[in-house]
């Protein structure tokens, strides 16, 4: 809201212990259970806690509201809760709250996460004031990730069965995280204050008292704000801008690793109709050979970004690397195309919605071997619709796997049974069987071997063109310490003043 005319700008700063961070995409509500974007996860981790958490140091799962756990068998897990965890309203977190939260998620079909949890969860029961037991329908490999992503709600706060109130926590939030919400203006900013009663846990106690997260859609405006001292922190900053900004001496730039990978999804299964050259293996292999991954990763993205040959980021669990590798070889690509019956190449609509520079670079590379690309770069919803209507022969996708270092995160959605999702265009039931089968066991070696087999098959048949891993660029003002984590996920609560 607008207040009076004040000619002097009052900047939040170290003096009043207030950090201002900027997001490009707007925060529309506070409850993580109703959002999917990375921004919601960052905010969720600041104001909420799940049973588990991904440690920044080694990307392993650590108990958060849980204090310890015990795997009883491959379908049963016992979890003890912290005794010192409290909601922002001061009440203690008990097993009742946890049971309520999971019941709410599973039984409230309107909730986005309902299906996912219901897919594996057989039951949750209270075994003591601070202990619970999960039973799953089958050995579920990605359990800890789900336990991390479900944030604990106070018993009864979301209504009761049959009378769920989905909007209860959208605009005010009674969470358990290191920060409390002071005020929230959707799409504009959220003002946070340190939760002095926070139990610490793997996130640790935050050093800065007040945090304001502003939504500033324009990256140029964000840079201007950073230079003029209006904000302290921004992310998703490209190499060139970050480096140039660092040169001015007004900000620090870090270009660190990210779990995000880029890839081309190819309609090998011929879902998009007749006469699709991509259904031919030689053509798909030719496309794999045609793109100069190394050059694009090094020159366009920079930092730790590298060419990737698997349908997952090499650093995550289960991402088997010893698969067929397609080196950059335009001549070979041309030969393969000729062999497939396209000596003069063909026309291809390539859809994309993100990373315009890389999409153009790729289109140019494909053009050099004869595949005349008509780039259809647009909004995600347009791509979603076209994909749903089976109009897409190839699209350029990326997957962030934010704070989930497991191949399951990317493979679960991309290799689904084609009857349940529209992204698996391989037309090969074997891929689905292998890649999703790996989620249904807790046996690490078995999972690894299933992924290995699946990833080898994907590479051999060139169902995708795996492209590269991304880097995450962050600009931070000179007055703060921000250290980038190996997964590129910004943990804002760890920022300290210099």
């Amino acid at each position, binding site marked *: *809201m*607008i*207040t*009076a*005319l*004040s*000619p002097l*700008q009052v900047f939040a700063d170290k003096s009043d212990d207030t950090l201002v961070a900027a997001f490009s995409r*707007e925060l*529309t*509500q506070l409850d993580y259970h*109703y959002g*999917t974007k990375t921004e919601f996860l960052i905010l969720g981790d600041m104001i909420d806690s799940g049973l588990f958490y991904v440690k920044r140091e080694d990307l392993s799962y650590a108990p958060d509201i849980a204090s310890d756990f015990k795997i009883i068998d491959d379908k049963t897990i016992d979890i003890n809760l912290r005794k010192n965890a409290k909601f922002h309203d001061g009440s203690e977190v008990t097993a009742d709250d946890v049971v309520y939260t999971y019941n709410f998620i599973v039984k409230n*079909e*309107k909730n*986005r996460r309902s*299906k996912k949890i219901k897919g594996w969860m057989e039951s949750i029961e209270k075994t003591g004031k601070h202990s619970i037991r999960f039973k799953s329908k089958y050995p579920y490999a990605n359990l800890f990730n789900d336990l991390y992503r479900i944030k604990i709600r106070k018993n009864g706060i979301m209504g009761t069965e049959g009378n769920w109130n*989905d*909007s209860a926590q*959208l*605009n005010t939030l009674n969470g358990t995280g290191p920060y409390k919400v002071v005020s929230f*203006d*959707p*799409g*504009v900013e959220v003002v946070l204050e340190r939760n002095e009663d926070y139990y610490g846990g793997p996130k640790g106690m935050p050093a800065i008292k007040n945090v304001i997260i*502003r*939504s*500033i*859609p*324009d990256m*140029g*405006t964000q840079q*201007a*704000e950073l*230079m*003029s001292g*209006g904000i302290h922190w921004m992310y998703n900053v490209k190499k060139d801008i970050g480096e140039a900004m660092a040169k001015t001496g007004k900000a620090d730039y870090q270009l660190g690793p990210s779990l995000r990978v880029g890839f081309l999804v190819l309609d090998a299964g011929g879902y998009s109709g007749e006469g699709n050259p991509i259904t031919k293996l030689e053509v798909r292999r030719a496309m794999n050979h045609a793109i100069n991954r190394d050059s694009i990763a090094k020159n366009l993205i920079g930092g730790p970004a590298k060419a990737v040959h698997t349908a997952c980021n090499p650093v995550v669990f289960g991402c088997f690397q010893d698969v067929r590798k397609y080196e950059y070889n335009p001549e070979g690509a041309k030969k393969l195309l000729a062999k497939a019956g396209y000596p003069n190449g063909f026309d291809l609509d390539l859809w994309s919605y993100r990373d315009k520079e890389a999409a153009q670079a790729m289109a140019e590379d494909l053009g050099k071997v004869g595949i005349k690309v008509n780039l259809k770069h647009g*909004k*995600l*919803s347009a791509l*979603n*619709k076209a994909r*749903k209507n089976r109009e897409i022969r190839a699209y350029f996708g990326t997957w962030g796997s934010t704070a989930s270092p497991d191949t399951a995160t990317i493979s679960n*959605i991309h290799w*689904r049974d084609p*009857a*349940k*999702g*529209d992204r698996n265009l391989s037309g090969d039931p074997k891929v689905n069987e292998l890649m999703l089968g790996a989620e249904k066991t807790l046996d690490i070696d078995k999972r690894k071997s299933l992924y290995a087999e699946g990833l080898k098959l994907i590479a051999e048949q060139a169902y995708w063109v795996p492209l590269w891993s991304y880097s995450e660029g962050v600009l931070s003002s000179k007055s703060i310490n921000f250290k980038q984590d190996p997964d590129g996920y910004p943990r804002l609560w760890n920022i300290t003043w210099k």
Partner: protein
Amino acid sequence: MLRFVAGRLIVVLSVGITLSIVTFFLLNYVIDPAQAIAGEEALFEEIEQIREQYGFDRSITVRYFEWVSGIFKGDLGVSYYWNKPVISLLIDRAPETITLALMSVSVTILIAIPLGILAALNPNSLIDRLALGIAVTAQAVPNFWLGLIMILIFALAIPIFPVSGDKTLFHFVLPSIVLGASSVPAVMRLMRTGLLDVINADFIRTARSSGFYGWRLIFNHALRNALLPVVSVLAVQLGNKFGGSVITESVFAINGLGRLALESILGADIPTVQILVFVFAIIFLFFNLMADILNAYLDPRLRL
């Protein structure tokens, strides 16, 4: 008067209905609402479930009438994207856009009208050429470009104004200049040619033959006549600012209706977008009607 307003209200209403049909059908055809609600990672069955749950499986005509009857009951629907009733979004965002619209029209008035008067009084002089230059420039510079350049100059190089945001009226100065500049050419040209026409009119010759001259002649006898069309154009411009603030609000991170519209479109949020299109249309029609009434009120020839 009543008859006229009633007639115009019928036009407003029927145009509103037409536009609501067009936008409703267009949006529901372009965007799959079930997919939009379900999100990126949804399974097919989830999408189908949502489709049933929200009734998207019924024919689009049925849903349209449901939507319209909801509006008549005061229920504008709930945004999928913002998880809020659309009406509360409108209430939240309207003040910023109203402020921006009013301030930008003020900027237009402050620049265009004096410049137009000076240019008309000194045709082909330096000031006339300067005014024409400003008009041609303002016409040829895209809004988003001007916005970025303004930030570059007046927020960074010479830090007078804040870069972005909408906390205080001070935040609105740069965006108002950017948005207001786009109306300057039209208003200034109208002021100039209007005053030139008036100065050459027979009744000014009468006034001169009665002994009036100089500024007294202009202010007492010419200005009111020349301002009449300008006032109604300004009212129309004010109406345009509501729908036209999309880019400016996005560049300056002002949380108004324009930015809401942009974000809702990108977020495939059908309920918000269709209400916004409707609201922008009604605002435009309303200000047009106001312009006509104002003009008729100010111009005795249209009164009776």
